[in-house]
């Protein structure tokens, strides 16, 4: 096991950033920490990379307790959420610099970063500050990998990156995992969860669940309907007055609906909406996604909190 987190808690004044967080990440595993902004992801990363001390709880990273910060700092790679390279240095100079502070050279570990580096190599003499968002992240990944770390921490690496570059980025992570590296990656994009081996859903500092993406969607456990309409606002308001309505959430252009009954009656719902004067609606049964599961779990979580 490369990362073992045992009931870590951390507060900033009255704000509880992390509450009793526990999970493990294995070698060769791509583990996703999924949750919205402000959920506590960055705080957890900073504790695991020894940049912050937890208020309570323990963690072991790459075989060392987090109190042994010098040993951990030698064996992990960390890519913070903010772009943290030197914008006035070129691509190549940044890479060389990070290799040098870890006491290695670019040549020694070139094999590991080659697949990524070839994509930015045409711009090797360009200043890092002048790169596009996707290129910047690829360079930052190279810099975090250059000393061949045992554990890799990537804090929201795909935020602000175009869809094509995002896809490429995840393909690289997939290859790194095959090399046996343990990778903990955080993201606010729920659709990226399915690319991970396992995920932990985090919300308001609490881990809602930890499982494989497939299992998480299975545990959703009730029929789900997508409603397509041109009048999202009115339809949402009207469904809230429907007797069997359980949840209704906007998902892009659609609305996702669950019913209070075990076996919902879609025909009846359609009739109900027509009765309210909505004629352009389209109702289809769909498979739940991670995001549906997240909304469901977050809802239950806040209900527990309010009780």
């Amino acid at each position, binding site marked *: 096991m490369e990362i073992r987190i045992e009931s870590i808690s951390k507060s900033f004044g009255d704000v509880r950033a992390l509450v009793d967080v526990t999970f493990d990440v294995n070698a060769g595993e791509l583990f996703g920490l999924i949750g919205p902004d402000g959920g506590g992801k960055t705080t957890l990363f900073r504790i695991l990379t020894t*940049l912050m001390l937890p208020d309570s709880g323990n963690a072991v990273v790459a075989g060392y307790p987090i109190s042994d*910060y010098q040993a951990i700092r030698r064996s992990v790679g960390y890519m913070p959420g903010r772009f943290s390279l*030197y914008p006035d240095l070129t691509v190549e100079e940044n890479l060389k610099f990070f290799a040098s*502070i870890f006491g290695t050279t670019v040549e020694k570990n070139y094999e590991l970063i080659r697949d990524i580096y070839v994509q930015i190599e045409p711009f090797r003499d360009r200043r890092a500050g002048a790169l596009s968002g996707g290129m910047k992240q690829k360079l930052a990944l190279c810099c975090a990998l250059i000393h061949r770390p045992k554990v890799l921490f990537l804090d929201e690496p795909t935020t602000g990156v175009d869809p094509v570059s995002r896809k490429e980025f995840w393909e690289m992570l997939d290859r790194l995992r095959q090399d046996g590296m343990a990778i903990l990656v955080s993201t606010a994009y729920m659709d990226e969860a399915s690319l991970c081996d396992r995920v932990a859903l985090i919300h308001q500092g609490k881990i809602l669940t930890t499982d494989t993406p497939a299992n998480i969607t299975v545990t959703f456990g009730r029929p789900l309907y997508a409603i397509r309409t041109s009048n999202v606002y009115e339809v949402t308001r009207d469904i809230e007055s429907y007797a069997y309505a359980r949840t209704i959430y906007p998902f892009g252009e659609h609305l996702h609906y669950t019913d209070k009954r075990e076996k919902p009656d879609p025909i009846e719902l359609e009739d109900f909406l027509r009765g309210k004067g909505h004629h352009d609606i389209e109702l289809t049964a769909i498979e739940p996604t991670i995001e549906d599961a997240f909304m469901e779990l977050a809802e239950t979580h806040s209900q527990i909190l309010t009780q």
Partner: protein
Amino acid sequence: MKGFIIKEFFHIFRDRRSLIILFGMPIVQILLFGFAITNEIRNVNIAVLDKARDEASERIIEKMLASGYFVMNGYLETEDEIEPIFRKGKIKAVVVFGPDLDRNLTAGGIAPVQIIADATDPNTANTIAAYAASIVRDYQADINPNVTLPLETIPEVRMLYNPELKGVFMFIPGTMTVILMLVSAMMTSISIAREKEMGTMEVLLVSPLKPVQVVAGKVLPYILLSSINATVILLLGYFVFRMPMQGSLLALMGTTLLFIITTLSLGIFISTVAQTQQMAMMMSLIGLMLPTIMLSGFVFPIDSMPWPLRVLSNIIPAKWFILILKGLMLKGVSITYLWKEVLILIMMTLALIGISVKKYAIRLA
């Protein structure tokens, strides 16, 4: 370490603004202070009201103009013209020769020479009057070498170490301290604060680099640059302004290096407190530059300050360095006479480095 220092040089040479501050400012400041901001007088416009019109008055006028301090602006005919010509503002002094000057002088009597100066700027007026008076006295002594002047005590003032009272001798040590303070302390504190502000400090922390290595990597390039600056200033002082170099050159270099390290440790200390570049700059400017200019004895003499400021001046490193510089360059004393000043600077440096290492965060706040 090597990689870190190379990176630091890239930062310095790619940031045009800081490069101008680093190398342009020292030269501009020295030249400004040396040539423009000076309390010496030169080319002062004078007018003459000559009632004698004899050989003596002519010779005295000749002597005054030959000195380079004065420029003849015209002759007046009557006393009534004196007031209006001062009002016009161009004339700083009027020299009035009484009638029968020649006879009075050769007889060893009192020379009826009057010097009227424009005292709207009192310091300049004083200097002008003193210069003019000494030229007249010289002339008197020239023509009467054997005549014993009436018995009176004339104090002979000798200005030691800077006989011509050249302001630039004061300005060069002063400017050098100010510039080293600015370059070393401000630039290092800003460059460390920049790593914090840009978030790169976060990555540096999660690396095997020790705090000492980060700080040393930041400081070493600036030691080199500051030494270059100090050398440029000293060369300008020596060759352009004829600043004397009485003492040991080796001692001068050693103490300059010591002061550079003192200012760098001040910069490191500031950066342990400041989180942003802006904050580091403000702290350097207000916390370091102002006291260095005001309280180091560079601009205002420390001895004439009220006692709280005199006490405060003791914690200004620049004060001690200026004392060392003056001692070595002007007085030519041996370094052993300056052991107290050197020791104080060493103690200050050690204390600052000690506090900084203790305060240096191994984690984020």
